Every structure is written in C-alpha cells, then in structure tokens.
C-alpha cells in the first residue's frame, strides 16, 4: 500500500506516489537552484514544469498515477540539471561576478612606508589622489604655525588606522584587491629588501676595504 498526493503541475492536476513526489520535488528544486542567479528563472522553470506535465500526460495510458519509474522516464528525456548548462550564459555570468566580487572602495589609511611623523599626510594624499604628499605636509606646517596648532594632525593620527597589510595599502590607493595586485605588492616589498641587502653588503665591503 502506498500513499498518494494530489499535485498541480503546469496547471494540470496529477496523482503522484509519495516517494515519486519527494523525488520530483528534489528535481525541480535543483533546477530552481541552478537558475537562481539568472533573472529569467521563473520563465525557465515555468517552461520546464509545463513540459514535464505534458510528458506525464502523454504517459497516462500506462496508468494514471505517477510512479518513480514514470518520473525516471521523464527525467531521462529532460536531462539532469548539469546538462541544462547554457554555456554562453554561464560564461557571461561568471565574468560579471568576478568583476563585482573584488572591486573594493578606497579607504583612508596612514602610510607607514612614506612617513615623516605618522604617515598622515601621505595617507591623505593617496586617498585624494594628490601626487606628492609634500603639499599636505606644508599645509599641516602652516596650520601649526598659524595658531590652529597641531591638533588636526593629532586627531587624524589617532583616528586613521595605519596601513598594515598589503590589502590595506591597496585599499589606501584605491587599487583593486586581487591575487595579481597583492602579488605585485609582495614582489615590490621583496625587491626593496633585496635592494637593502645589496646596499648593506656594499657598505660592509667598503668598511672591510
């Protein structure tokens, strides 16, 4: 003895075995999940449900109740969800998600690599796209002399975080954070260390000589 369920599929009424109902539900959900990202999901799902209903109708001569065997027949005609992949659409979507995932906004940091006191001026320069931080440094000096004092600088020193990691430095300049740009930054850092070592060894040689 088996329990049956009444369903409405594509506007038609069917009687389906409970186990077949579970399997059909799973199948339709997997299709829904597959197309969840495309904005035509409802249309696609409608067409597919409609077609499945038609196939069941055509098969009604073999008994009016939908069994697992009947469902398997329909699934073989429709294909598994992996076969539904519409290559072109997938490619387009993949590209757009990659672009949106890694685009990050510019953030204000203090730049410890290019600092006179705390890197406030160079951090602000990077944020506002001013090429040389000297302009802001002079401005801070003028502020300090003109009676406003050093308070604005101190406040910025406290409030603005220091750029500590490679991704902080990229965000400071508003560059996109991705594997390539981080790799570039790391490479730059390594080159700096290499240069320092070369300089150091030159110094040592000079001293020995």
């Amino acid at each position: 003895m088996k329990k049956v369920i009444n369903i409405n599929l594509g506007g038609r009424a069917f009687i389906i075995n409970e186990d077949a109902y579970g399997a059909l539900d799973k199948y339709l959900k997997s299709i829904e999940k597959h197309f969840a990202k495309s904005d035509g999901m409802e249309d696609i799902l409608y067409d597919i449900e409609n077609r499945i209903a038609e196939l069941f109708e055509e098969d009604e001569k073999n008994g009016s109740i939908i069994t697992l065997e009947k469902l398997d027949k329909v699934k073989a005609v429709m294909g598994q969800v992996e076969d539904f992949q519409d290559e072109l659409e997938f490619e387009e979507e993949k590209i757009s998600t990659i672009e949106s995932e890694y685009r990050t906004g510019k953030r204000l940091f203090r730049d410890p690599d290019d600092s006179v006191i705390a890197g406030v001026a160079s951090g602000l320069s990077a944020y506002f796209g001013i090429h040389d931080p000297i302009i802001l440094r002079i401005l801070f000096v003028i502020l300090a002399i003109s009676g406003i004092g050093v308070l604005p600088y101190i406040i910025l020193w406290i409030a603005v975080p220091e750029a500590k990691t490679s991704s902080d430095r990229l965000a400071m300049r508003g560059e996109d954070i991705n594997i390539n740009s981080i790799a570039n930054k790391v490479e730059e850092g390594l080159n700096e260390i290499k240069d320092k070592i070369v300089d150091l060894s030159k110094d040592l040689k000079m001293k020995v000589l």
Partner: protein
Amino acid sequence: MKLENTKAQMKKGLLELCVLSIISEKEMYPSDIINQLKKSKMIVVEGTLYPLLNRLMKADLLSYSWKESKSGPPRKYYQITDTGKSFRDELMSTWEDLKNAITLSIKK
C-alpha cells in the same frame, strides 16, 4: 579530452541558429521545437532548450504570446522578432562561410 564534450560544444554553437530558423517559419510551441530538434538529433536532452529560449528572449531575438489550447491550460507560443530575423540571417551567412572553410580545411 572527451569526445562527447567536443561533440556537444560543436552542437551548442549551432543550436541558436537552428532554434531561430525553426521558429522563423511560424510561431511555435516549445514542444514542437523540441520535436524538430530531436528529429534532427540537434539536442539530446530537452532541458538544454529552455535556458536557450530564455536567453534569446532576453536578447530580444524572440518573444512569446499566450494562446488558448483545446486541452489543458493556455500555451506559450514563441515567435521571432525583427532583430531575431536579421540575427538569424547573419548566423546563416557565417554558417555558410564556415561550412566552406571547414570543407576546404579537412579535404584530403
């Protein structure tokens, strides 16, 4: 390298042309499109057609309208748009060029 994958890729590129050509004869119900494509062995599983129809529709190459049916609920009929017609003609001439090019390339 799987032979089946390569075969499927080759077919997929030309499926758009087939669907547009089939629909350009007259407005069509998805199941009729399926039957034609199956007859010519252009598709193996039906599931592939629906995302394609949707994509063509989003690109304004196809549109659809509802029609009453003698049995069951109203049916969705797809028809080709003017943009779709010129798109099909472009694809058709590309296909002709490609056919000649391939015949020349693989001639022994």
